[in-house]
């Protein structure tokens, strides 16, 4: 029965592959010959493939849940003792399963594009669908002929090898799915961008569609990145959340170029400029996702996230080359469509600040790319392996990052067209004053342990916050004066009338709060490693940690959990008990660290059980006090909330309210 299910999975993927082949053919021929019926048939095929790939995914979930160890993938990534939730997350724990997740997300997006796209730009849908299905065809080829999750063994093992203990974390239920929703999602704006070029369109509709899709997928990628960081923080046990690992970098690069696009597209909207650049950014973002997948699949760079060495890397390299050449061909072939209007009035303007913002974002993406591939370049050209890790990225990206934060404050408030000294003075004098006062206060407060990077990070973040507050207060005052509304009503209506602007402010606020958290936790973290007996204490940064003993527990799928009990005090007051542990898993060479964290807005007390001796009654702990980590997570949630706020549809009632208010405004003005 279960083997039949595996066969059903294989057959389903096989059918999906050939249906996709037909769909691509039908779209191309249908569009070329203007055959409406053929295009409609292709559209039906999109739905069919989405259904087939969903069915294949459901079959894999079933096989994982029932523990059919005759299926190689199930035997490799699950075992009987694995909790049900992690049996589900084993779906994307390995190479073949994660490819299936890629395909599933892509075909669901293609389905949404083909069936739910209404209104403007409908003529682009067949083109965009054809492109998405062509990308999907590549993934289905891999799943069908190269790396199938339904491959079976000649025998049925008594039990599976189990899931890597590091992946047995709730974050692994969210991080891969959201990362893929973002990562794969960038194929959609790419498809619309290429479609617009093929249709010789570069106007408002193109911007609207591409921008909206980019924003949504960018939000998912942001969530994916932040959950990946949280997973690293609570699971990897080194006290940090970002290690500049090649796979982490692979997710950051398209995020940076996507961010650049979301800003530069505003210049195209307002001024009809930078069309070539915007299309290039969308293409670059998509190609970087394929490049990132190549990095993860090829095993050419060592990474904690990589799936090990495989032949898949060459397929991805070939696909990357094909898509790059195809994109460049379309771009150059349709260059005349992208002729820009010229309305650049002054170098001192919002337009310039956006160009600088793009320069720094793309520069940061390039720095990450360069650092990630440099080991390969060195090995190829010099025959010498080198490592490029955190020290390189921190030194190169911190200056770029600080300049970007400063621009985050400047961009929204500097005038379009042409700024003046009066405009600059009006908008930036108070924020600069607040920034300098805060920097002076911090310099005094942190005088014994001051760090220039931290001072600049906090100063620039303060500047951004001050510009946002100032602008919101001014707009609120104007609105109240014009409409006569009360404070709360005016604030509510002001925010909801211009979701894009204030959503953007929320995102900016989230980013600077994250930067405050990152600067605090990476510069002012303190750690101590100490061996203590039961009843003895460890003192660190005003915290007192009392070791009260070890418990030996058994929590499957671990064979044994060695759990230390540590009571945490601050200024004599008991804050709580933390229980760091080492877990022994059958499928792990050494014990797996499970850290314990006592979190507050000011500090995280991060406790690792480094060693123990039951006979002597001693245990060794590595304790870190990481300041402001909670700010990083809070800022990230604010960023996501801001994006949701910005993309949320306005609704008819608001539009009607606007008309009323407009009338009131005219009346009182």
């Amino acid at each position, binding site marked *: 029965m279960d083997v039949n299910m595996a066969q059903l999975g294989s057959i389903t993927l096989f059918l999906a592959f050939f249906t996709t082949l037909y769909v691509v053919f039908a779209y191309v021929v249908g569009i070329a010959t203007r055959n409406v019926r053929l295009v409609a048939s292709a559209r039906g095929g999109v739905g069919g493939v989405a259904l087939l790939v969903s069915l294949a995914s459901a079959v894999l979930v079933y096989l994982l849940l029932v523990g059919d160890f005759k299926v190689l993938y199930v035997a490799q990534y699950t075992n009987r003792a694995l909790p049900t939730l992690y049996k589900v997350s084993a779906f994307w724990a390995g190479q073949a399963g994660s490819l299936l997740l890629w395909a599933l997300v892509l075909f669901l997006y293609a389905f949404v594009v083909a069936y739910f796209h209404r209104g403007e730009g409908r003529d682009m849908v067949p083109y965009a669908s054809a492109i998405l299905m062509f990308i999907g065809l590549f993934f289905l080829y891999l799943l069908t002929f190269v790396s199938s999750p339904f491959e079976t063994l000649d025998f049925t093992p008594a039990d599976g090898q189990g899931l890597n203990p590091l992946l047995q974390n709730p974050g692994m239920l969210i991080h891969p799915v959201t990362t893929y929703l973002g990562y794969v999602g960038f194929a959609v704006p790419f498809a619309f961008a290429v479609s617009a070029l093929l249709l010789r369109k570069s106007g408002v509709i193109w911007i609207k569609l591409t921008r909206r899709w980019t924003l949504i997928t960018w939000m998912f990628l942001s969530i994916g990145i932040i959950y990946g960081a949280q997973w690293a923080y609570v699971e990897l046990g080194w006290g940090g959340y970002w290690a500049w690992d090649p796979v982490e970098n692979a997710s950051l690069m398209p995020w940076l170029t996507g961010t650049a696009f979301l800003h530069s597209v505003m210049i195209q909207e307002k001024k009809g400029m930078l069309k070539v650049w915007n299309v290039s950014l969308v293409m670059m973002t998509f190609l970087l996702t394929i490049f990132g997948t190549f990095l993860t699949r090829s095993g050419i760079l060592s990474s904690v996230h990589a799936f090990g060495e495989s032949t898949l890397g060459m397929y991805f390299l070939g696909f990357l080359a094909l898509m790059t050449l195809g994109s460049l061909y379309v771009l150059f072939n349709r260059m005349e469509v992208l002729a820009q209007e010229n309305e650049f009035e002054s170098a001192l303007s919002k337009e310039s600040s956006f160009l600088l913002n793009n320069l720094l974002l793309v*520069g940061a993406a390039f720095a990450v790319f360069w650092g990630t591939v440099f080991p390969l370049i060195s090995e190829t050209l010099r025959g010498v392996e080198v490592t490029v890790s955190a020290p390189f990225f921190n030194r190169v990206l911190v200056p770029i990052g600080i300049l970007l934060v400063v621009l985050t404050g400047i961009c929204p408030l500097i005038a379009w067209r042409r700024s003046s000294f009066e405009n600059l003075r009006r908008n930036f004098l108070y924020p600069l004053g607040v920034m300098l006062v805060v920097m002076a206060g911090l310099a005094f407060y942190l005088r014994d342990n001051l760090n220039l990077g931290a001072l600049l990070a906090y100063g620039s973040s303060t500047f951004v916050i001050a510009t946002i507050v100032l602008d919101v207060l001014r707009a609120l005052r104007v609105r109240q004066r014009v409409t006569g509304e009360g404070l709360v009503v005016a604030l509510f209506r002001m925010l909801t009338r211009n979701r894009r602007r204030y959503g953007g402010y929320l995102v900016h606020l989230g980013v600077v709060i994250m930067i405050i958290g990152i600067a605090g936790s990476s510069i002012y973290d303190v750690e101590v490693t100490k061996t203590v007996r039961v009843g003895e204490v460890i003192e660190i940064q005003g915290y007192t940690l009392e070791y009260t003993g070890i418990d030996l527990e058994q929590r499957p799928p671990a064979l044994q959990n060695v759990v230390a009990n540590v009571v945490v005090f601050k200024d004599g007051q008991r804050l709580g008990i933390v229980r760091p542990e080492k877990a022994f898993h059958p499928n792990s060479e050494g014990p797996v660290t499970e850290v314990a964290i006592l979190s507050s807005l000011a500090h995280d007390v991060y406790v690792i059980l480094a060693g123990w001796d039951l006979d002597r009654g001693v245990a060794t702990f590595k304790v870190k006090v990481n300041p402001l980590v909670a700010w990083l997570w809070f800022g990230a949630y604010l960023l996501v909330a801001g994006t949701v706020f910005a993309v949320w549809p306005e609704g008819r009632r608001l539009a009607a309210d606007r008309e009323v208010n407009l009338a009131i405004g005219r009346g009182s003005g």
Partner: protein
Amino acid sequence: MRGSALFIVVAIILAAVSPVLAADLETIARDIESSLICYCGCTMVVASCSCGTAEQIRADIRQRLAAGEDRDDILAAYVAQYGDTVLAYPDPAVPFNLTAWVMPFLGVAAGGTLIFFLVRAWVRNYRDRRDEAGEAEEGMFDDKYRRRAEEEWKDYF
């Protein structure tokens, strides 16, 4: 008055930053830990790794510092023993590796230069067209911008 307030604020910041530069042995040790990759296979810097190997390296670094070796001596000793990959960044003393450090900034500088010339050309082009059209120098609000202003007014209210 405003100028002197600004001077005082900046002076406080500068005065506070200057003594930070003196580094003690523990700071140097942590810097070295952050510059070396743990060779246990975790691919993390020694400062981040909590395995037994990292503990040994940490102890060795402190021992060497206490014996009078400086940062560069210690890093060179590790590179001599474990190869270039033990260093967490491309050694800038090797000329080829300098490209790793310089390229990102060169890229930004090249992009910045391109933007500078582009913006200059665009602005000149705009002014030439405006002059040709005989528009007034300052304070012009053509119809297009007036329409846009009205649209934005609508957006807000």
